[in-house]
Structures are given as C-alpha cells and as structure tokens.
C-alpha cells in the first residue's frame, strides 16, 4: 500500500514536470509579449518583465484589427457554408444506398489529402480573372472547399451511429425529409457538428498559405499579418509575440472548452475516445 502511494506521487510529479517543460516555449512567448523593447534586447535575457506592460497588445490591436475581423469572418462563414453542404451529403452517404457511395466517400476524403499548393496556382489565376482576388468572398469560398471534405467525413461516421428506427418512426408520423434532418438528424449528430465547427474554425483561423497567396490587403488574414511582422529587416520581437499571443488565445480557449471532441477531430473520426 505504501509503495503504491509513493509511486503515485512520483508519477504525479513527473506528469506535472513534463507538461510544464513541454509548454515552456509557449510560456516564453507569453512573457515576451509583456516585455518592452529594451527588455527584449537585454543580455542576460530578462525572464519576467518588470511590470505588466500591455503597450504591445494595444499597438498590435490597433494595427491589426481589420485582419482579426477578416480571419474571424472567413472562419465562421466558411465553417457555416461547409456544414450547409456537408450535412445533407453525409446524411445521404450514411443512409441511402446510392451507387458507389463508398467510392464517393473515399474521393471526398482524398481531396482533403491533396497538397494545397497544387490547386492554389490555378485558383490564383482564376481568382484574378473572376475578380474575387483579395476579397473576403473569395477567401470564404476557398476555405469552404478546404473544410468540406473533413466535415462530410466526420458527419458520415456520426450519422451511421444514429439508429435508423428513430427516423423511420418520424417518417411514419408524417415528417418529410427536411423535417427529419432538421428535427431529428441534426440534433442527434450535434457532437459531430461540434467537432466539425471546432476544427474548421481552427484550421481556417490558422491557415497561412491560402491567405498569403490569395490576399493582398483588403482581405489579408491574421497569420499573413503576423508573418509580415517577422519579414521586416528589423524584427519587432515584442510586437510579434503580442500578436502571436492574441492569434493563439482564441484557439487555446476553444481547446479548453472542447477537450472531449478533440481526439475524434484530429483523426477524422477514425478513433473513438
């Protein structure tokens, strides 16, 4: 009994230490965001800023608020559009015996596996011709295509778990297809929808490549703005750190609120938690 307790203490201590060491780089970034420019360049390095200085945050918020807004609108709208297309598609693939539905499923997933650089070159040319280059509409449409395969794939596995009997009972009660989807299907797969929403928003929010190529100024997204801080000759580390913290914060909050959905999201629903 005694031995058991001491080994418990050791494993508790090691998990705490391991986690602390592992996220130390993130804490270092957080500290940097509060330092003044002078503190950033001191040698030996200043560990704790001597006061809680929020000037960096105020500066980058003023400087980058349009990019925050662009990223937010692009994330939310493309997630919504992807769900709008994915829910009926996933329902159909899970429920109806349409010809070659397995092939369709695989093809949809395979579009998610494609390296984005392969489609981005032609899309850049098309966007310029159509006149949606550097617009939010263009970005939203693009991100929808990028979030759609994941949404379909996750929702299929959730719809398959819903017992058919419930829907059949509703059908007998006189519900039509839209009513069944709205009042029975969607509420029953709400966990799946949560997974899709969490990951689509995080992916879109975090994307650099599409934003870098498809925007210039009007629709510039937050990661692109962040990258441009680092590309100047004289890197403003303290501002970069502040913007990075602000960019990361929403994702951290989402992660904490939704820990139980994360495993199924990370593995395309392939692993149950």
């Amino acid at each position, binding site marked *: 009994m005694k031995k058991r307790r001491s080994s418990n203490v050791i494993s*508790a201590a*090691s998990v705490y230490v391991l986690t602390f060491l592992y996220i130390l780089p993130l804490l*270092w970034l957080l500290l940097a965001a509060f330092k003044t420019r002078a503190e950033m360049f001191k040698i030996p390095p200043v560990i704790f800023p001597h006061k809680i200085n929020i000037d960096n945050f105020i500066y980058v918020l003023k400087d980058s608020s349009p990019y925050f807004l662009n990223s937010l609108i692009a994330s939310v709208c493309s997630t919504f559009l992807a769900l709008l297309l994915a829910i*009926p598609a996933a329902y159909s693939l899970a429920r*109806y015996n349409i010809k070659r539905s397995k092939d369709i499923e695989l093809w949809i997933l395979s579009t998610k596996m494609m390296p984005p*650089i392969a489609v981005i070159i032609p899309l850049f040319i098309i966007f310029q011709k159509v006149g949606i280059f550097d617009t939010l509409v263009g970005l939203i449409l693009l991100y929808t295509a990028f979030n759609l395969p994941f949404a379909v794939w996750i929702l299929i596995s959730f719809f398959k778990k819903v017992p058919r009997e419930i829907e059949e009972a509703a059908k007998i009660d006189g519900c039509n297809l839209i009513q069944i989807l709205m009042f029975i299907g969607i509420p029953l797969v709400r966990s799946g929808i949560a997974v899709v929403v969490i990951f689509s928003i995080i992916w879109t929010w*975090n994307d650099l490549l599409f934003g870098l190529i498809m925007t210039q100024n009007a629709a510039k997204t937050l990661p692109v703005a962040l990258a441009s801080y*680092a590309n100047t000759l004289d890197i403003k580390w303290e501002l970069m750190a502040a913007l990075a913290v602000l960019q990361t914060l929403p994702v951290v909050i989402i992660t904490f609120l939704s820990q139980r959905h*994360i495993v199924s999201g990370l593995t395309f629903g392939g692993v149950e938690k």
Partner: protein
Amino acid sequence: MGTMTKIHTEPIPERIQKRKRFSGENVTGWFLVLPAILYLLVWNVYPLIYALYVSLTNLNLTRPALNKFIGLNNYLLLLKDETFRTAIGNTLYMTVLSILFELVIGYFCAKLFVRAEKIKGVNILRTIFILPIMITPLVAGLLWSYILNPTLGIINYIFKILHLPILPWLGDEKLAYYSIVAINVWQWTPFMMLLIIAGLNSIPKSLIEVAELEGAGWWKKFIHLEIPFISNIISIGVFIRVMENLKMFDVVYATTNGGPGKATEMASLLAYRQSFLYYQTGYGAAVAVLILILSTILVQLLFKSMWRRDVV
C-alpha cells in the same frame, strides 16, 4: 393491423427490388449529395486539371500575354534541377525522421499519462500538453526562431551558462535542418501521444492483469499486449502525419525560408517561390504537379495497407 405486418414480411420480388435503384429514394440520395460533389469538383478537380495545363506552359505571372504551350519542357528542366531533388529529399527525410521521433517520444509521454490516470487534474494537464498541436505552425516557427536566435535567444544563453558551445541554430546548414525537425517533433508529438493513450486505454484491464500474474516484463507486455492494441490507431496517426509533412510550408517559411543555401528547402516552398516570387508559374505548377503525384502514390500505398487490415 395484422394484415399490414404480413405484407411487410413478405419478400419483395427481385424485379421490384431492381427497379428500386432508380426509384424516389435513390434520386433523393443523389439530390442530397450532389451539391457537395459539385462544389468539390469546381474547387479541386477543375483546378487540378488547370494546374496540369499550366505546368505545360511557360506562364509568367508578370506577362501572361506571352504564355505559350511548351509541352513537357518544365518537367525535363525539373529532373535536371538540383534544387528540386534537394527539396524532395528534404521533404521525405523530414517526414520519416519526425514521425519516428514523434512515435518514440509520444509513446513515453503516453505511458506517463496513462500511469498518472487517477491523479487530480490530469485531464487538464493533458489538454495543456496538446496545446502545441492547436497553435498555428507559423507561430510555432516564429516562437522557435526567437528562442533559437543566436544572440538574443534563450537557448544559447542557457548553453553559455552550462559552458556548452554557442550555436548558430538556424544559420548552419545541418543544424537548421535538424532544428526544423525538432520544431516539427515538438509540435506534433502530443498528437501521437493522444492516439497512443487512446490505444493503451483500449486494452482490457483483465488482459493486463493476466500478463502481470504470469510475470511478463515490460518488453513482453509491450510486444504482445500494447503493440497489437495500438497499431491500428498508430497507423491512422502516421498516415495523417505523412500527409501533413508532405505539405510542410509554414514552419520553414517562418524560420529559414529554405536556407541557408538549400539546406531546408521543401517541396511546397519551392513551388510557392517559383510561382509567386520568381513568377515562373509554369515551372512552379510543374513542381506542384510532381508533389501531387508523389503524395498520391504514398497515400495510395498507405491507404491500401490500412484498408487491408480493416483500419479505415
């Protein structure tokens, strides 16, 4: 009521069953799935065909009017291009090396978390531990380039205190490459760890007890108990990580931008630079098409082997 049940239990004649394929239900099914399919056709298939076409031209974004069909010329040039070979080699080596490290470190972390299962707050600790997966790779790259900065960086300062040599982490060819591997491993080990935890938790407690009663050491338990239970989950993880590594862009863009020299050049980065910085769009498209072919082959191989073992 009784008659109705009787009608339902009677087998449907084959002729009618066949007709059902084209009946209302089937049409509704297609009607529901078609918008998504059309959307993906427009945004994936059409651009891919377009990319293939662009790769056969000498398109230059600054003077699109001079665009000319040049056949396989870009591809011939590519095969002779040493930068391209380096980029592909770097990408593949990065993929193999990082995944190996992620698996080994991920396994040890997973064991630690599973052992500490009953400890207070372990769920919150695990969520904190997986934060690196959630931050954008761009932030990971920027953050590490700050930490590894030769003069201001904390790593070199710690090295100095410990009387270790001060190193140009991202400035030396070999070191820069392995620094990026390390950043990659840091960011994605928690992902493997989560999967391995899920796998380890799926082992029935009774089996573990039997193994312990029979005096199986950790190696025996690892080979005969843990590996069989985690292998399917791990193959999903490896599959996803291979895909992601082949697309690698952000971390390199934020840290070394491919340099010094070509030491950290990656396939996606090369295609990006050729197309959008040097405006050699036809050439860039050819790079992109070859990346696509390469990743399709790898995906097929991995997917087939998973399919055979019933993982997906």
